[in-house]
């Protein structure tokens, strides 16, 4: 196994034991970038020399006995909405031409303090306002969408061009691309990870979180990211915690909520089969399955749109007036139309959110986690705009990809996607686990137990496919 194929936890163990130096690891991942990136388009910028210098420093520190912890010397990528001092934050948009961040975002600073090494910045659907990331190709099939908006981060992790990455999630933008590329994505509890220095799409829905190859890796990254920062008004004052899950796989006593409504409606049959098979595995590990009814399902899309559209419009108010022609058409027209929404519509969505949070809290008194599909269908072909369900209902691809993710953004509950299989075309399928606010430890325990007892390919197939892309 090449160093770039190691999980974060495996690489960290090897670095700590001095079986692997950060220089070897970074060189291996940069070699993989040279090989695969021309076929993938995951990166906006690769900072190779800066990464090599940081790796040499990390190697020196470890050799001196100054080991900072499991992220020390680990190469990673940041979605290009996340400020890094001295680098542009392009948001994958011409609107940001000439931008240069003057300070690190809170998360970049925390990863730097933990010893992680920045490889580069990854593509987002422009300003995170979309679900496909058209600049980037799916790691498993270059003819299919990467998913979005953190498409570059998910493809980089899936293809071995970053050992881990950060994304942002406003309506599924961590979980959707993670699921479509067969990797793990965690949207933490609203406010657990500070967003200072991260370009906003919608303040009351935005989250930052890790994209990794394993659940254990996501826990290691979350441990470095979580914690209060007064510069983010939503930041929680939760005490520092070590989120790394223990080795136990016994889930006896755990109540897993299986939705009777919403989450299995208009879902591809192969997605449903893979998710139900994964849920059966949780039951085999001792979990008790409890059927639950998802509350207020008729109002989920309306609440998501009622919050996101005017908040995004407000964020972009200035540049929409000064440089509107620099936006891509799909984003520009949504921002323009957002200006025609009323304050009443926005406040109604905020009040609906209050109700929905209360209803979800009641539901989560009966179960410890909810298990559901992450997205209704695997990655579609890049030219597909709509999906037609067997009852004749037509849905836009973006609406379909947001549909099962939005509840966790509206309510702020944590949500984890874990790869649990593939469809007949070989495209990955994700299981979504949702939990109580600040109960990331339970989500991570369940996801880790699943991965330990049913390990997936963790991207090995990805690497061989991308090395020899089909014409």
């Amino acid at each position, binding site marked *: 196994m090449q160093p770039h194929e190691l999980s974060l936890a495996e690489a960290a163990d090897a670095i700590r034991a001095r079986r692997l130096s950060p220089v070897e690891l970074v060189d291996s991942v940069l070699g993989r970038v040279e090989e695969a990136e021309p076929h993938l388009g995951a990166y906006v910028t690769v900072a190779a020399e800066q990464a090599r210098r940081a790796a040499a420093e990390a190697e020196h520190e470890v050799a001196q006995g100054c080991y900072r912890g499991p992220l020390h010397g680990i190469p990673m990528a940041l979605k290009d909405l996340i400020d890094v001092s001295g680098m542009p934050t392009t948001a994958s948009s011409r609107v940001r031409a000439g931008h240069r961040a003057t300070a690190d975002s809170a998360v970049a600073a925390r990863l730097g303090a933990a010893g992680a090494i920045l490889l580069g910045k990854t593509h987002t659907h422009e300003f995170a306002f979309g679900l496909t990331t058209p600049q980037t190709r799916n790691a498993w099939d270059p003819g299919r969408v990467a998913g979005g908006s953190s498409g570059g981060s998910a493809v980089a992790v899936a293809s071995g061009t970053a050992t881990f990455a950060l994304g942002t999630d406003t309506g599924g933008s961590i979980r959707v691309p993670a699921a479509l590329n067969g990797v793990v994505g965690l949207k933490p*509890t*609203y*406010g657990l990870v500070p967003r200072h220095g991260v370009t906003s799409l919608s303040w*009351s829905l935005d989250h930052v979180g890790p994209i990794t190859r394993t659940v254990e890796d996501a826990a290691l990254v979350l441990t470095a990211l979580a914690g209060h920062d007064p510069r983010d*008004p*939503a930041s*929680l004052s*939760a005490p520092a915690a070590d989120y790394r899950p223990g080795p136990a796989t016994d889930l006896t006593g755990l109540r897993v909520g299986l939705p009777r409504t919403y989450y299995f409606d208009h879902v591809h049959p192969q997605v449903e089969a893979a998710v139900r098979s994964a849920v059966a595995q949780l039951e085999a590990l001792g979990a008790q399955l409890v059927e639950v009814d998802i*509350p*207020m399902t*008729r*109002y989920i*899309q*309306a*609440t998501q*749109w*009622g919050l996101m*559209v005017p908040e995004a419009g407000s964020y972009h108010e200035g540049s*929409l*007036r000064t440089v509107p022609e620099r936006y891509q058409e799909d984003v520009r*027209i*949504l921002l*323009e*139309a*957002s*200006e*025609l*929404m009323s304050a009443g*519509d926005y*406040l*109604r*969505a*905020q*009040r*609906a*959110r*209050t*109700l929905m*949070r*209360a*209803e979800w*809290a009641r539901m989560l008194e009966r179960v410890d986690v909810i298990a559901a599909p992450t997205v209704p269908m695997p990655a579609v072909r890049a030219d597909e705009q709509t999906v037609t369900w067997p009852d004749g209902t037509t849905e836009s691809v973006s609406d379909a990809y947001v549909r099962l993710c939005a509840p966790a953004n509206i*309510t*702020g*509950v944590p949500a984890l996607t874990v790869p649990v299989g593939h469809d007949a075309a070989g495209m990955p399928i994700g299981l979504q686990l949702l939990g109580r*606010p*600040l109960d990331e430890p339970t989500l991570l325990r369940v996801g880790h137990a699943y991965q330990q007892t049913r390990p997936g390919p963790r991207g090995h197939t990805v690497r061989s496919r991308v090395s020899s892309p089909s014409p």
Partner: protein
Amino acid sequence: MSAVELTPAEAARWAARAGLVLPAERHAAVAAVADHIHRVVAVLRELDLADVPPAAAYRAGQEEHDAAA
């Protein structure tokens, strides 16, 4: 077109009232997208929101409301 849907000219006028001058060739498309958004979010008018406050600022870990849908 229903009575509440925007005409292209109305979309342009509403945008102008918000301080956004739309080029003429965009009026129809913006009106269509604005109407689509309106149809989606108008569903929320079915809710009896009674005294429920907005959740513009909140803590995900705290529950303090007991209003019913």
